[in-house]
């Protein structure tokens, strides 16, 4: 067993864990943060993407212990004061999903990407999500959603919720 201390979505956690525990399983099974999915489990599909110190990382290819001392953000940590992150809202508004399995990974990758490239072209968006696979092949609306979020974040417009949305 080994000592782990890290911050997840702003909360500090300490635990004594088996060194071979992967970050994705620590998040899902120990902390119950099941918004992060396990897809291919071979660092190809990106469904398990989370932010480690602000960088998009595939959490199935990282030991939880490697994240010791780091700040992790999962899809559950994006909503601030009851308001969705512009990317979450844009995926909703543009129907950037079909089955939804890849969605949290797509959004976490896009959060990192838009920090480095706030005004991306469509080609740049498609390149940025090459490590995230949508097996419904719903890329069209995913790209549209990321583009819409980029525009909105750049304009810094206040979020408008569609009627009837909880």
């Amino acid at each position, binding site marked *: 067993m080994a000592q782990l201390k890290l911050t997840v979505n702003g909360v500090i956690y300490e635990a004594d864990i088996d060194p*071979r525990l992967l970050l994705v399983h620590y998040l899902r099974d120990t902390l119950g943060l099941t918004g992060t999915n396990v897809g291919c489990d071979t*660092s190809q599909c990106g469904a398990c993407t989370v932010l480690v110190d602000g960088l998009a990382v595939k959490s199935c290819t990282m030991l939880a212990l490697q994240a010791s001392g780091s700040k992790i953000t999962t899809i559950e940590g994006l909503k601030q004061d009851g308001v969705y992150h512009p990317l979450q809202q844009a995926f909703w508004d543009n129907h950037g999903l079909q089955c939804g399995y890849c969605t949290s990974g797509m959004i976490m990758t896009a959060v990192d990407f838009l920090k480095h490239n706030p005004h991306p072209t469509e080609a740049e968006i498609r390149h940025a999500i090459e490590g995230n696979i949508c097996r419904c092949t719903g890329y069209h609306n995913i790209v549209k959603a990321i583009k819409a979020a980029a525009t909105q974040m750049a304009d810094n417009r206040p979020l408008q919720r569609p009627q009837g949305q909880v």
Partner: protein
Amino acid sequence: MFPAKFEYYAPTTVNQAVALLKKHRDAKVLAGGHSLLPTMKLRLAQPPVLVDIGKVKGLAGIKVAKGGATIGALTTHATIAASKDLRKQCPAITEAAALIGDMQVRNRGTIGGSLSHADPAADYPAVMIALGAEMKAVGPKGARTINASHFFKSLMTTALKPSEVLTEVRLPPHQPNSGCAYVKFPNPASRFAVAGVCAWIALDAKGRCAKASIGITGACATATRASKTEAALRGKELNEETIAAAAAQAADGLDCLSDIHASAEYRAHLVTVLTARAIQQAVARAK
């Protein structure tokens, strides 16, 4: 999938890491983990001890000076790909880094980890050979330098001893009238190189080839040098014909791999095509 059981150590200095490796002979060094952890999850590797150097200070970062560039072993592919200083002096390495895997993999994978793992389809080895890079390895008896030409021994095997840690990569200083480029044919799913070629070309005062250095990866069990092509280019005027004639010899004598992704014949063909493209780009940059 999760790895077989192992003991885990997280040293904070290189010396501590070396001492741990000396004590545990079957230990493996863990850096970003993007080569080692997938093989451990598939149980292809089952090291009883992991020495995680991720918390060792001073192993990450790029320094570009007149005397050459140094890249710390823990520098990520994303950092290398984004380095403007490095791109100016040696675009082949930033090109190679930008073509590795995907954004998430580049955020976490490190140059030291990739080089030590020595996957036959990794991108950096071709660049290291072509540029004449040197690897700094620290072991129980101190530090030593290994030239890239002697570093890659065979499939997933380097000149590193079990108790040595690769700490730094050094690139020689930029020479006037020289240029380099890396091109690859990636596997569409994994982005690993089915074949990849790095060319470094120096021109003389008359614009002829003074020196050529060409590294090949992906094609064989380990990265190698296209010696015949290098010899064929030396002293030649560089035009489409001479480049094509030299590149046509790039796969001569190579024992190319045959697998689900490509046959040996196809890999040999890719090597000649990519070599011509890499030389053309390198020459354009040398002018």
